[in-house]
């Protein structure tokens, strides 16, 4: 009897699975059409493709979970990012915000209310309808639920420490109200939407039968992949630790190409787990991977095989990655201990910091450490951001007309040091403080990072040429981070991540920011320059007009680079990527989106 029942259930499951796999009978009226190959669109250089094939890429880490809401790490979000979508998204070519699950939105005149109009007729990957209830669930019961451990809540907090109020108007309309104008709200509302029908059972607020915090462990790696549901192009089908994650096409994905072909093109998207980036590179060379993010050092190896094996090595020296690299000058050195008075006074002198900026031989760094594959950096905002001050207007081309350039100049550096009384007083060839003590500064970076170590050596070498003694001491990464947070380092070479939204750097550049590591005491006693930066950052989020915000952020960037100089920027590595030429639309790869790193997975295809 039992056996019979089990068999019957099995058959039912099979039929059910077949029904789900059929997908939409016809293209939903609100489907999102990706204009591949259409002139005057961001996709003019792309082509409509054909369905089929298995895409292979690689990673060096296993996922930690399938729960996007509680994930902190890209080893998880590289999969959840393919499974889920938000109300809005950023275009993989232009980085502009565009409609996603919301087909449009209206902003009230006072800028305090955004009304999102959702696409209708869409379904989750299991065939359940997508409605406003999923949006309300995601924000009110997950992201804004104190029981849920999520980083997303941090990007939803408003300048007055309140949160947006998210309300359902009807099944396909959602309203978001804020107490104050907050420009990045649209960006913040791009957080992924989760399926209420699949996850509400784990939320104590909605299901008191489960303990508080149950959601935090929901959709763990022990979850049967058949329970995972999404709106994105792919859904996890299986996971084998240390081997691979196999994702299958979402039969209800709502992106279509101009020919009416439902995306994604690939049948499956497989991520191999490999021991190291070296193994990834070898597997790519063997043809076992279709695409790979590479580094400058990999370029010659791949170039020797590029033509023979029919792949493309994308190298764009003029297109840097997101992020910043810099020398941090600790203006609080010895403050807590009552030591380092000379150093602290020197580091707090703007002209010393400017002299250091003139000592950064960026071209030598680019040539000797990056084989030319890097660009000079001067702004805290990423080059690719539409708010980058090297542009003339929001999203305009980069002209660097207003760039704040401290060109490499030993003469100018020496002149600035002379001007603040840092001169050689005893004739030993090294510059001294006014009291006759030699200026001797420790320069740290994390040991083993050959590029950063190279930067330190170049800067110390140039400084020595004008009698400024910088002692390079590489230290363990964790020790370095401790030095940074404890304000015990003097000069530190490190980097920060970046992105298109300047306000994401508020925790670093605001005087009371948690990562304002070069001048933590500014939280209580900011300089006039820091006060100005605070004001500009607040102003930048208080307008919904991107053009106005651009002008504000331009002044912010120039002020930081010219007057603050707490961080002296060095160079930023260029974008490098490799893909086999059988991969259609791989040519759209950029620092923003790649076939293997997200953003293009739904529109790439096999020729």
């Amino acid at each position: 009897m039992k056996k019979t029942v089990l068999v019957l259930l099995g058959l039912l499951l099979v039929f059910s699975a077949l029904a789900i796999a059929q997908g939409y009978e016809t293209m939903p009226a609100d489907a999102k059409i990706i204009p591949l190959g259409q002139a005057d669109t961001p996709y003019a250089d792309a082509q409509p493709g054909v369905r089929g094939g298995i895409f292979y890429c690689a990673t060096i880490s296993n996922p930690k979970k399938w729960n996007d809401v509680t994930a902190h790490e890209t080893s998880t979000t590289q999969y959840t990012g393919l499974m889920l979508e938000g109300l809005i998204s950023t275009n993989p070519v232009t980085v502009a915000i565009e409609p996603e699950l919301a087909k449009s939105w209206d902003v009230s005149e006072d800028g305090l209310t955004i009304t999102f109009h959702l696409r209708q007729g869409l379904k989750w990957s299991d065939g359940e309808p997508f409605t406003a209830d999923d949006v309300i669930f995601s924000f009110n019961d997950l992201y804004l639920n104190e029981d849920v451990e999520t980083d997303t809540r941090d990007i939803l907090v408003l300048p007055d420490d309140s949160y947006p109020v998210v309300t359902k108007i009807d099944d396909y309309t959602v309203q978001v109200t804020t107490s104050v104008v907050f420009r990045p709200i649209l960006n913040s509302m791009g957080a992924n939407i989760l399926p209420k029908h699949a996850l509400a059972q784990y939320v104590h607020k909605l299901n008191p039968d489960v303990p508080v915090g149950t959601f935090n462990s929901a959709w763990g790696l022990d979850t049967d992949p058949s329970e995972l549901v999404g709106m994105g192009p792919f859904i996890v089908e299986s996971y084998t630790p240390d081997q691979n994650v196999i994702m299958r096409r979402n039969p209800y994905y709502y992106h279509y190409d101009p020919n009416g072909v439902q995306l994604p093109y690939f049948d499956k998207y497989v991520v191999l787990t490999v021991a190291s980036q070296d193994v990834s590179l070898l597997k790519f060379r063997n043809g076992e991977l279709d695409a790979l993010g590479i580094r400058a050092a990999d370029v010659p190896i791949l170039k020797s095989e590029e033509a023979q094996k029919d792949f493309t090595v994308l190298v764009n020296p003029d297109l840097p990655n997101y992020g910043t690299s810099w020398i941090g000058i600790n203006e609080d050195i010895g403050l807590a201990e009552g030591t380092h008075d000379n150093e602290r006074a020197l580091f707090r002198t703007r002209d010393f910091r400017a002299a250091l900026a003139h000592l950064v031989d960026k071209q030598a760094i680019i040539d000797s450490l990056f084989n030319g594959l890097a660009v000079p950096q001067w702004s805290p905002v990423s080059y690719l951001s539409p708010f980058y001050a090297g542009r003339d207007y929001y999203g305009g081309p980069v002209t660097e007309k207003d760039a704040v350039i401290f060109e490499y100049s030993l003469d100018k550096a020496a002149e600035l040091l002379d001007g603040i009384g840092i001169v050689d007083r005893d004739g030993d060839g090294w510059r001294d403080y006014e009291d006759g003590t030699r200026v001797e500064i420790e320069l740290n970076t994390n040991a083993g990072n050959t590029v950063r170590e190279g930067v330190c050596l170049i800067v110390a070498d140039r400084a020595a040429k004008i009698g400024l003694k910088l002692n390079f001491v590489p230290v363990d990464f964790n020790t370095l981070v401790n030095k940074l947070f404890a304000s015990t380092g003097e000069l530190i070479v490190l980097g920060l991540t970046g992105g298109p939204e300047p306000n994401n750097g508020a925790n670093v550049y605001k005087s009371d920011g948690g990562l304002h590591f070069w001048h933590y005491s500014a939280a209580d006693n900011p300089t006039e320059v820091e006060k100005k930066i605070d004001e500009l950052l607040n102003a930048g989020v208080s307008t919904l007009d991107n053009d106005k915000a651009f002008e504000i952020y331009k002044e912010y960037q120039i002020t930081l680079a010219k007057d603050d100089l707490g961080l002296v920027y060095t160079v930023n590595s260029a974008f490098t990527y490799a893909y086999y030429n059988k991969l259609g639309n791989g040519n759209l790869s950029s620092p923003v989106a790649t076939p293997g790193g997200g953003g293009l997975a739904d529109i790439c295809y096999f020729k």
Partner: protein
Amino acid sequence: MKLTGLRALVVVMSSIALLSVIGLGANLESIASNELVPEISAAAGMALADSYAATMTEAELEALAVDGRTIGLRTAASGALAILYRDKTEDEIMAILKGDADPMIRAAAIEPAQVYLVSVTSDDEDFKLTDYLKDIAINGETHEMRLAAAKAYYFMSRKSLKAADLEEQAVTNDSDELAYAAGETLSGFYLSFNPKTQAELEDLAINGSSEGLRVAGEIALSSLLIKSDLTALDFETTLLSIAGTKSAEYRGAYKIALANRYAQ
């Protein structure tokens, strides 16, 4: 893939044409089986490797790699084995490399071995992977074992390499295999950070003072040839005209380029 059109050439190059079966509408398998110009036969074999890997068993391929009547057939089998060997374990691959199998079979294990060689670890605090690889590249049991280690050595050293250093190491090194691998690596610099003209690469492939330098010229030149507008017929014509002359590496560049056209 166009394999016809050599008839005119046959008229003007009758002595060479006697050696060649191409131009008679032959398919790749026929060229690999019957072509007497070794580089053309081998190019066809290189282009056949994928289909052989998909249609033949490992045992069949191992037999063909050893006993194949022509270099083209043996090359096709060895290339196909390299694909099948990707699924072998580290122990299996190393056993092939170190063992007494035919060199064509050991050659098939060189590329699959790279993944294992670059992943070697040790509990010894003083262990340094590049030192370990270099030692095998000098003292390995077979040429193929040494070559696999030499390739892995230069792969793992790539972050600190400069073209000028490689130019020296392609001439003078601790083993022939290390010099060869240095030349291979150097070719990538000639195609990226230290570009050379086609004429310079041709000269290097022919007149380079060591095998390593000539290999650098060969690989970089083959890349330029592949990216050119030249057709399979053009490459066949050149290979016919230089058969047995110039240098093996110069002919090798055209062989690689021809294999690329055959595979399209």
